[in-house]
């Protein structure tokens, strides 16, 4: 068809390299989620602090993260800061970019989740002698993370997919970057990217299934 001959065998012989790339992709996504969740909790605390500077900082972060392209965020983390003489490796830049994006979206998810937790929960904790931070950490945050659990898995899927933007800052060890390099060498464009697509699909499906299993354990109450 269209004069193109499929050569799946040749493309499939590159599968081990692509799976290595998939591991890097998962590594970046997991790291960006772990750091992103921690930062999102911090941003949430900033918003709750009642301090105008901290609140403004958190609001600005969330606004930029949610209203600019992820590609822009990754570009700024690589080429943007390079203008000021700060040079990150493509891996680090991509990680920073995705983490920034994750933290912004997650902070907004957390804000929504907090609305579902009555103020009286904090009051009950405070009346047992807890500091505001203790009441947040032991009572509010665990409930918040449970309520925001499904949006968090969405963000995890998003993080996996966003790693494909790493090629734009020169990353060539992740799934998309590896595929791009292999394509340049072999010109099996359709086959290679189709395989990459299937791997992306499988990774995100496994995440969603895993999340459902974890949720079944977490949401016992």
């Amino acid at each position: 068809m269209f004069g193109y001959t499929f050569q799946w065998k040749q493309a499939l012989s590159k599968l081990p390299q692509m799976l290595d790339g998939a591991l890097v992709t998962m590594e970046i996504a997991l790291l960006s989620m772990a750091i992103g969740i921690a930062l999102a909790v911090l941003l949430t605390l900033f918003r709750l602090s009642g301090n105008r500077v901290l609140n403004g900082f958190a609001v600005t972060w969330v606004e930029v993260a949610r209203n600019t392209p992820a590609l822009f965020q990754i570009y700024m983390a690589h080429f943007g800061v390079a203008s000021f003489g700060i040079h990150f490796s493509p891996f680090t830049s991509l990680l920073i970019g995705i983490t920034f994006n994750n933290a912004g979206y997650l902070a907004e998810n957390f804000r929504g989740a907090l609305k579902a937790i009555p103020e009286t929960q904090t009051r009950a904790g405070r009346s047992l002698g807890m500091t505001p931070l203790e009441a947040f950490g032991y009572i509010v945050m665990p409930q918040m993370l449970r309520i925001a659990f499904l949006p968090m898995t969405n963000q995890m899927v998003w993080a996996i997919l966003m790693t494909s933007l790493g090629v734009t800052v020169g990353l060539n060890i992740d799934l998309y970057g590896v595929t791009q390099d292999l394509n340049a060498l072999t010109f099996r464009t359709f086959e290679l990217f189709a395989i990459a697509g299937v791997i992306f699909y499988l990774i995100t499906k496994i995440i969603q299934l895993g999340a459902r299993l974890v949720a079944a354990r977490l949401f016992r109450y």
Partner: protein
Amino acid sequence: MIEIENVYKSFGALQVLKGINLTVPNGEVLTVIGGSGSGKSTLLTCINGLEKIDSGRILVDGTDVHAKSTDLNKLRQKLGIVFQQFNAFPHLTVLENVTLAPRKVLGQSKEQAREMAVKQLSHVGLGDKLDVYPSRLSGGQQQRMAIARALAMSPDYMLFDEVTSALDPQLVGEVLDTLRLLASEGMTMICVTHEMKFAREVSDRVAFFDKGVMAEIAPPAQLFDAPQTESLKTFLAATH
């Protein structure tokens, strides 16, 4: 001893406490009655510092609750409070609900906290519900758990803020029984309540609040049988 001296408190333009003076000696069971909006619940939250006051003083064992130098977190350890809403922590089991503060605030070991929790939960009749989540409990059970949770901090005073108001009528009795038990053991208690029969039965004194003023305070027999003010007479007529 809890000493309340000339306390004023407003929410915006609304004055809810207008010069309250009241002393609660150790071992006393004081119930506070009055219409909604009379300031009785606000007084409780002012006593444990959840609400600030505009003027006056509240002393708990001589410590000024609202002084800047007072460590409120420390002070609240001696002031147990139970609210109208049960405020169970839904992500924790009954046992974890009760052990959380003793472990994290008082620094008790897991075993120590568990021992105390089991004792208090048995006390309120929930000894067989340790590993259940609050969502599986009835309102009355949740409220009794909240009482055990407060008691596990070994408070010197217990404040009860309309603890039966959110309960189905058939569950009120079990919670009041728990309060009766506590009273009979000599706990110093301030109970804001709408349960007149209960107030008459367990109180050493009953205070009647009306529009932010403590209109009357007397032993129950006197207060209920020989009300002095028109407002109390009207209130009692309406609730009987």
